[in-house]
């Protein structure tokens, strides 16, 4: 558990652009955790904090993530063995969802705030992410959380949400909106090898025997 948290810290902090997302979701479980869906867009490391965040024009028709105030003095809470030592999470290669509040800079894992879902997007950098594609995934995450409102807060539902986001990322890949990162540490094309599109109109295969 401690090792996984430190590996998480080491993988997230050195990235120039943070791709993590905090979202407060409304889920109902036996303990009556009921919260509203909001979202906090994480921005980069301290180096880029001086830069003003560009106010992107909201695209009509796309679900805009609702903002959440950033928190200070977040500490890792409830990570010890006496609390069960586990957390509700869904972890796949590109999508990690935790039912906790993870501070973007310090990576403090606050488990007492189980009303929030934190999404960490592609920590291994298998794809090339731009702010536009990131915001597409975030808005899809927001839509999913709204859709799953009222569901019990279990790992089962978190896995369903994570799988839906992974299918969405694969759809973006097949449409060409995101690309594989050729400088990735592990380049194994996990969502399908790149293919030549024979249906492209502008690409004419040259005849060899000319």
């Amino acid at each position, binding site marked *: 558990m401690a090792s996984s948290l430190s590996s998480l810290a080491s993988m997230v902090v050195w990235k120039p652009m943070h791709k993590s997302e905090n979202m407060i979701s409304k889920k109902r479980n036996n303990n009556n955790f009921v919260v509203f869906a909001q979202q906090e867009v994480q921005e980069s490391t301290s180096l880029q904090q001086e830069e003003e965040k560009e106010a992107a024009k909201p695209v009509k028709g796309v679900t805009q993530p609702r903002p959440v105030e950033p928190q200070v003095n977040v500490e890792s809470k409830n990570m010890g063995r006496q609390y069960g030592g586990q957390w509700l999470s869904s972890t796949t290669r590109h999508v990690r969802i935790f039912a906790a509040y993870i501070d973007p800079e310090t990576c403090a894992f606050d488990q007492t705030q189980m009303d929030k879902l934190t999404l960490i997007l592609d920590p291994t950098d298998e794809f090339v992410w731009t702010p536009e594609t990131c915001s597409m995934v975030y808005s899809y995450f927001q839509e999913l959380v709204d859709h799953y409102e009222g569901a019990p807060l279990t*790992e*089962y539902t978190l*896995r*369903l949400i994570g*799988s839906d986001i992974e*299918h969405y990322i694969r759809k973006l890949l097949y449409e060409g909106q995101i690309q594989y990162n050729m400088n990735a540490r592990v380049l194994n094309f*996990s*969502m*399908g090898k790149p293919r030549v599109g024979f249906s492209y109109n502008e690409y004419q295969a040259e005849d060899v025997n000319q």
Partner: protein
Amino acid sequence: MQGNLSAWLVKHGLIHRSLGFDYQGIETLQIKPGDWHSIAVILYVYGYNYLRSQCAYDVAPGGLLASVYHLTRIEYGVDQPEEVCIKVFAPRRDPRIPSVFWVWKSVDFQERESYDMLGIYYDNHPRLKRILMPESWIGWPLRKDYIAPNFYEIQDAH
């Protein structure tokens, strides 16, 4: 065609149905869920002190759920112990079968597995909860009408 045990049960007036013999020559009986807890004790007293295995299966989509018990007698100096196979059929809407944990202890985990995979609820089982699937799983995986959700599994990755 009736076996010895079936004849003995008929002699004592216990309601059952004989399902004949399977390919290994083990006689098979069908017992109703309501009578099962009493007949289990009767069989234990008769001498079947070892529950070899308990399994369950889905008979047909939309049909019954079967819970199967293989009983045998463990004793010294016997080459071919007596065996019997009991099938208890439960309706799909309310699959409740009395647990025989208090008769044969080894049925503990096996009934938990049948509950986990098929949803057969065993009454009076001391700790009936999921044993193979994660605790928060929804659905009974080995039922014939179970559809797994579209999870992004590792085999999707190339």
